[in-house]
């Protein structure tokens, strides 16, 4: 039995729109990759072997130290239908890879969904912590704590010279991937974004769009993450990402200020126009929705639009994805039907939020 909140509610900790710098940083995430020393990695493991790995990892859930962190629920991927998997992917709780390709895959979720532990993904164990706002250090602390509990019970694949051994050579060493999701409309509108993103890639960090590829990120959302995992300590990696993100926040703030000073009426027009379209449109594709929602969010942050909570935007960002729309509808939908449902959902949320 899968608790309904995991696959039916969009509401999850990282979407609450709270946390430091949450007008620019949507969420902070740390993921660490670990493997059991004595088992082949999931790519080569037999059904029997991956079954044993799952058993060993789920046994750790009984550990008192883990219970102290939170209550956890284990959900085997086999117990979920396609839509439920899609919803967990859209909530960023599992990876597409785990959803589609894993054998004896499972996810272990904490009650508030801040911790999600993927079993038999590319590595045996992937511990992920996801916090709202700019809390990358806090996310690392929590992931580290969860890792310590598993380490007490299991023999990890670890080498003195190479560190934690992972399936992909890009993760070896610390096995850590830390990332922040940032909303950067100011830098995009003022056309400074490519200059800044180029600079970011020169200091060993990677940038990619969320819900989109390349430099034209949908909804002006960008994810910045570390690339190097070997030869730097976890603290160095986190500090580096923290420092760079902090600078981007400052640039974004300055860009927004400048836009308001120099293009006040254009910005007011743009954000209200998007609010109007979202409040009344009958058909809305995902690309337009992402852009309009970004405009409205900017309008809220600049105090031009009042009465819509930023939380509604985070929630809509996830709820307007294909998997969620179909989950709410309770059936498979064609792309045209999805665009109609999406428009309807956004209209309802905005109306409810403005009257509240």
């Amino acid at each position: 039995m899968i608790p309904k909140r995991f696959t039916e509610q969009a509401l999850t900790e990282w979407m609450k729109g709270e946390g430091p710098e949450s007008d620019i940083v949507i969420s902070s995430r740390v993921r660490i990759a670990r493997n059991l020393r004595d088992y082949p990695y999931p790519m080569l493991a037999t059904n029997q072997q991956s079954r044993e790995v799952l058993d060993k990892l789920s046994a750790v859930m009984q550990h008192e130290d883990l219970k102290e962190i939170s209550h956890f629920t284990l959900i085997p991927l086999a117990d979920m239908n396609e839509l439920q998997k899609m919803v967990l992917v859209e909530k960023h709780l599992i990876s597409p890879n785990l959803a589609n390709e894993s054998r004896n895959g499972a996810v272990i979720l904490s009650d508030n969904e801040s911790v999600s532990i993927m079993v038999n993904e590319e590595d045996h164990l992937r511990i992920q912590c996801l916090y709202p706002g700019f809390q990358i250090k806090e996310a690392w602390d929590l992931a580290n704590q969860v890792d310590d509990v598993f380490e007490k019970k299991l023999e990890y694949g670890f080498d003195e010279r190479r560190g934690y051994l992972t399936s992909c050579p890009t993760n070896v060493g610390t096995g850590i991937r830390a990332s922040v999701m940032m909303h950067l409309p100011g830098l995009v509108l003022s056309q400074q974004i490519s200059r800044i993103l180029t600079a970011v890639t020169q200091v060993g960090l990677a940038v990619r769009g969320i819900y989109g590829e390349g430099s034209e990120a949908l909804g002006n959302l960008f994810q910045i993450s570390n690339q190097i995992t070997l030869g730097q300590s976890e603290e160095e990696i986190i500090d580096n990402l923290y420092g760079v993100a902090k600078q981007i926040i400052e640039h974004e703030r300055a860009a927004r200020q400048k836009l308001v000073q120099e293009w006040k009426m254009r910005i007011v027009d743009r954000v209200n126009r998007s609010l109007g379209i979202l409040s009344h449109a009958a058909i809305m594709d995902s690309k337009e929705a992402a852009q309009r929602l970004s405009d409205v969010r900017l309008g809220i942050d600049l105090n031009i639009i009042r009465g819509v909570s930023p939380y509604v935007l985070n929630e809509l960002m996830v709820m307007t994805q294909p998997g969620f729309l179909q989950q709410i509808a309770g059936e498979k939908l064609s792309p045209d039907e999805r665009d109609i449902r999406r428009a309807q959902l956004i209209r309802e949320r905005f109306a409810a939020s403005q009257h509240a």
Partner: protein
Amino acid sequence: MMCQECGKKPATLHFTKIVNGEKTEFHICESCAREKGELIPGTSGGFSIHNLLSGLLDFEPSQSQSAAKVHKLRCDNCGLTYSQFSKLGRFGCSQCYESFSERLDPLFKRVHGNIVHTGKVPKRSGSIIQHKREIDRLKREMMSSIEREEFEKAAELRDQIKELERKMSAK
């Protein structure tokens, strides 16, 4: 908008490619995207990090005779060959790191700019590593004590080192 490929289904995926500053856009439906092997967000397939890695792994500067030998390297534990590893871009088990060890320094150097881990150490296997690091430190201290002719101090340090070495061999 209809799919540019088949013209039958509505286009749900919109790609923008920028190659050497030249921008091209195309709009296709899901099934055509799959056929073309374009990356569909949220699914597997398309160009991945592993494709990129295999490019790095196959890089064999001026060693064409030994290349054949290298590709025959095989991990005893899981059976993965080096040649498979270089195609897949992934290791098969923890033992692979040992089996392909001679080939890995240049790879890690290229991917990470480093070859040695300096971060977290698991506490259980860590105690040995921590002891080793501690012994190295004590030995350096002992040498400098001897240079300063502080022999009593050096003798103390020597005993500490012995004690640690005894603990390690007991494990």
